[in-house]
């Protein structure tokens, strides 16, 4: 009897300790600002455009990091537990790290399916949706389509519109503000788009090789022809036989540009370049890939100036 009692007393003590800790935290009645956490910096940049100073935005992944392989660090939980809205890229880009973070966050608002969980892929035009049987023999395919969709300004506009509507839904008092911010962003983006289109126009139809399949939307928008990939299959590192094939292909197609994300090793691209006379461009797939690329506009400015210079040089 005594033993039993002491057992239960012990249990109750542990339970009480955990519960006590739960109520220690004062319920943070943050002012009117919505706390938004995004999976990537691009979503953060777009949220910032439409959210203005009515939102606090923070991204989990850094712009120079491979968004497929982010570590599920507990420090991210500190951000997630305070979040009112979580914006994800979706299409299983974050499948390797985000689900456990969301589960452990203890934040019911941002659970998948809750009002504060926003999958931005629903707004965008998605390419590379597999139509035949999907197997892993194709590498790490994304069965719902290519998740690198934000590098098309038209998709940027669509995503921003979707986020603005979502923010308005969560904070109806400021929905007019968010809509105005979106209209303003739309105007600036349209103007910038005209400039980018004009800059890229002379190079429409030019052939490029990319490391990973990160550029279908960008290539479609600006009329580039992606003829091959350094990776033999998505997510599979380069193999000698594929590299030889690719060198042959680039020579045949007279392709002079290899575009590499900042998080991939340059050894293979450099050796391909030396054998084909091509140029290796470390382009930025995301905002924040370089220090001064701080918003969505600068991302395109950077990549387009990089590309146009390279195209001119390899004319």
């Amino acid at each position, binding site marked *: 009897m005594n033993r039993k009692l002491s057992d239960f007393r012990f249990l109750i003590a542990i339970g009480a300790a955990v519960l006590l800790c739960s109520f220690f935290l004062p319920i943070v009645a943050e002012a009117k600002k919505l706390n938004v956490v995004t999976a990537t910096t691009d979503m953060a940049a777009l949220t910032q455009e439409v959210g203005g100073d009515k939102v606090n935005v923070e991204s989990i992944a850094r712009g120079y990091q491979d968004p497929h392989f982010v570590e599920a660090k507990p420090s991210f939980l*500190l951000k997630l537990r305070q979040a009112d809205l979580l914006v994800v890229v979706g299409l299983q880009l974050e499948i390797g790290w985000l689900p456990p973070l969301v*589960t452990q966050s203890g934040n019911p608002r941002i659970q998948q399916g809750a009002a504060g969980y926003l999958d931005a892929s629903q707004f965008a035009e998605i390419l590379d949706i597999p139509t035949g049987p999907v197997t892993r023999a194709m590498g790490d395919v994304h069965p719902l389509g290519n998740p690198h969709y934000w590098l098309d300004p038209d998709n940027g506009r669509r995503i921003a519109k979707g986020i603005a509507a979502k923010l308005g*839904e969560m904070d109806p008092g400021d929905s007019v503000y968010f809509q105005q911010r979106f209209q303003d962003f739309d105007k600036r983006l349209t103007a910038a788009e005209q400039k980018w289109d004009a800059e890229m126009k002379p190079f429409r139809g030019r052939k490029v090789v990319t490391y990973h399949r990160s550029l279908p939307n960008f290539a479609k928008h600006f009329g580039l022809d992606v003829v091959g990939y350094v990776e033999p299959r998505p997510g599979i590192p380069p193999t000698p036989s594929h590299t030889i094939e690719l060198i042959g292909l680039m020579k045949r197609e007279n392709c002079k540009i290899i575009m590499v994300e900042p998080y991939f090793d340059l050894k293979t691209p450099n050796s391909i370049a030396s054998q084909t006379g091509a140029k290796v461009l470390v382009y930025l797939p995301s905002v924040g890939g370089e220090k001064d690329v701080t918003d969505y506009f600068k991302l395109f400015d950077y990549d387009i100036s990089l590309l146009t210079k390279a195209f001119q040089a390899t004319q």
Partner: protein
Amino acid sequence: MKDRMLIAVVTILFSTPLFAQQSSTSAAQASTQDTAALEQRIKDLEERLIALEGQVRMLKSGQAQPAAAPQPQPAGAQPAETAAQAPPQIAAPAPTPAPAEAQAGIATTGGQLPIYGGASAASKALNPDISVIGDFVGAAGGNSAPSSATLQPFPSLQMHESEVGFQAIIDPYARGDFFISFGEEGVNLEEGYITFTALPAGVVAKVGKMRSVFGKVNLMHNHVLPWIDRPIVNTNLVGGEDGIDDAGVSIERILPAPKGIFLEATGQVFRGDSADVFKASQKSDVSTVAHLRGYKDITESTNLDIGLSYARGHNDAGTNSVTPLSSTDFLTQLYGVDATLRWKPLRRSIYHSFVGRSEFIWSQRQQPLREQRAFGFYTSADYQMKRRWFLGGRYDWSDRSRFANVTDKGGSVVLTYWPSEFSQIRGQYRFTNYAENIKANELLMQVIFSLGAHGAHPF
């Protein structure tokens, strides 16, 4: 398919106004206006198509499922309206009956060939993510382990484990995880629990059978270990491969802490039956586990993770006893400290990383003659040399829980190769020096392969 639909829409749009255009007065002006209007209309339609495709995708991936109850849509937002309406609302997060119809239409009229994951996706949408992980182990070399030792050799060739995982979101308030392992001895529910994610005050609760949070290795499934075997200290003091894995309830919560420090407390109560560590002879013999975890990012690529663990339960010494009155009074208490240092440069995160880890465990086991106080630890390091190559080492030192005065020691060198994220080949040279002064040199080989849903990477 989208292109075909677009062409159809465009043709219809073009034909109607063009036929109507009969009057010859200011025809040119009107036609330029019309073209502009048409272009706008096509653009609007394209936007609507993209929005619709997005909704279909959401439905297919089953993500729209647990959303709030569908609200009656105002008549103005039905997609069946005339094309002359204002640009559509792209954001319509609540699932409405209309996109569901659209999905059915697309799925069946998409073409003669069945589209994988298309037509039947609706029926699959609510099924859990299924994965199977195979774990094959081979061993060579001599190990004449004494029968009293807990660390026993691997057989020459063994399909060590096949783990089937089912994972899904249950409802807006919870998710469920099942891991069923098929070993050589039979089938075992390794874990099966519900996680309540929508509790107030940031509390996360789990109910079911689960691996307890005592230290680091106890929580890990075989296929995420950085070695083929488990450290001797886990085998000797914490139940080895099965470990503290029991039916019960777990509550965890992030605690307030100075900025930049992550602090989390977990409390767990189990029935009290875990491998050879705990044994419940009666209902009240529950076991408890408490864990406190502190974590800090030192830089963006380096971080430190420290844990304190405590476990308490009744052991099997009681049931072996002759006197039933005193029989259930034998307790085992475990104390643990774990520390992990990780390094992974973000710009080259897929190529290089380092994990250094130690766990120190003290066991206090009451048993008939006298209480046994045993101590053990391991210390390990793993370095990722290239994208696919990992080199690691581990040093083991541990007393035995039932005979605390004897100590087993050992060391291992591990080389791992990853053909892809979904398979792994590993070799391990293991040296063991048993307390009885028996030495063993073994070469272990392991192949791990994973099918189905892409699981989350452990941290």
